[in-house]
C-alpha cells in the first residue's frame, strides 16, 4: 500500500506526494476521507501540547490510507510521544478509530519542526 514509505521519514515526503501506483490525492484535495482523522489528530495534539498554536496537522490520502503528519513544537515532542512512545501510540490508536469510522486506514507520524 505504502511501499517506499518509511515510517518516520516524513521529511522525505513533500507536499506534492508522488506515488507510482494507485490514486494520489494531495493535501489540497483529499476531501472527506482525511477530514475526521485530521480533526481528531488535531484535537488530541493541541490538547496534549504546551504550545497548541504550534501544532500543525497535514494529511495525504492514497487509496484508502490516510497519512497524517502531526507537527508540534520541539519542546512538546516529549509530551506528545510520551514515555517509551506510549502517548504517541495512544494517539495513533484513537486516530485509527477515527479512520475506521470513515473506512480509512491511518498512518500517523509525529514530527518536530
Amino acid at each position, binding site marked *: 500500500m505504502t511501499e517506499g514509505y518509511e515510517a518516520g521519514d516524513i521529511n522525505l515526503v513533500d507536499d506534492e506526494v508522488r506515488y507510482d501506483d494507485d490514486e494520489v490525492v494531495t493535501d489540497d484535495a483529499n476531501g472527506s476521507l482525511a477530514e475526521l482523522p485530521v480533526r481528531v489528530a488535531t484535537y488530541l495534539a493541541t490538547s496534549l501540547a504546551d504550545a497548541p498554536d504550534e501544532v500543525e496537522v497535514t494529511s495525504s490520502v492514497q487509496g484508502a490510507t490516510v497519512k497524517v503528519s502531526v507537527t508540534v513544537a520541539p519542546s512538546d515532542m516529549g509530551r506528545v510521544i510520551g514515555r517509551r512512545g506510549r502517548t*504517541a501510540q495512544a494517539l495513533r490508536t*484513537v486516530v485509527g478509530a477515527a479512520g475506521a469510522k470513515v473506512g480509512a486506514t491511518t498512518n500517523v507520524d509525529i514530527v518536530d519542526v
Partner: protein
Amino acid sequence: MEWVEVTGKTVDEAKESALEQLGVVEADAEILIVAEPKAGLFGRVRGEARVRARVRPAGPRPKRNRSSRDRSERPADEASSEPAAQREPKPQAQKAAKPKNDRPKAEPKSPRAGGSNRPVQEDGEMAEGMTLEEQAEVGNKFLMGLVEAFGYEATVEIRNLDDETVELAVNGEELGLLVGPRGSTLAALQDLTRTVVQSNFSARTDRILVDVAQYRERRVAALQRWVAGIAEEVKASGEERALEPMSPADRKVIHDAINDIEGLATRSEGEDARRYVVIEPAN
C-alpha cells in the same frame, strides 16, 4: 548523539553515573528514566534504577532521531501506566543542584534543566494541591471535546468510585469504535486523558479511569464471575493456579476479588506484558 544506559540504586545515583560517563552537567544532558528503583516493573534489573542519557544536542530539536517506527515497536508495559505516582524523590545531600523535595507526587526528570530545556517525559508544570475534582473536570472536558471531534452524541459522567479514584464514564449510542478490539481504544483514551490531566496538574493520574459504554464495568463483572469459579477450584484442590497474562487493570480486579475471599491469596509473576496472577491458598 549516543545514548548511555546506566543503573543505580536510586534514580539520582543512576543519573549521576550517567552524567559522569557523559562528562556533562545535568542541564546539558537529556535523561530518560527507563526504570524506577525497586519497582522492577521493567523486569530486566529488578530493584535497580535505570536511566538513559545523552548529551543534549545543540539547538532546539533534540529528538529527531527517535523515529515513530522505533517508538511504535516498543511494547506498552505496565510501568508506564503509573506515571510519576511511584516516583519517590530521593535527593542526595551531595547533589547541590537538586533541591530537597518532600513532595512525593511530582519529581521532575531534570529539575535543573531550566529555560527552554524541558524534561523528556510528560511531566507537567509543578502545580500543587489540585483536587481530584479539578482533575476530573479537566479529563471530562478533554473527553467531551474528543467525542465532539468524532461527531458523536455522548455524555461524560464523573463518578467517584472512592475517595481516591474517579471514573469518567462516556455514554451514548454507537460508541463501539471508542472501545476498540478488546478495549484497546478505550485503554488509549485513558492514557491520553491521564496525560492531558497530568500536563495540567503534574499529579498522579492513576486515580482517573475512563470508561466507554460501560465496557469497563462489564469487563470487571465478567472477570469477577470468571475468577470466582477458579477460586472455588483452588479452594477445593488446595493447589495454586496461575492465570493467563493480563493487563494491570485486569490483574487488579483479580487481586481485589480474590483477596475478599477467606483462605485465598494472590501474587503476580512474570514481567511486563507477560505478567500474570497466581491464586494460592493462604498460609
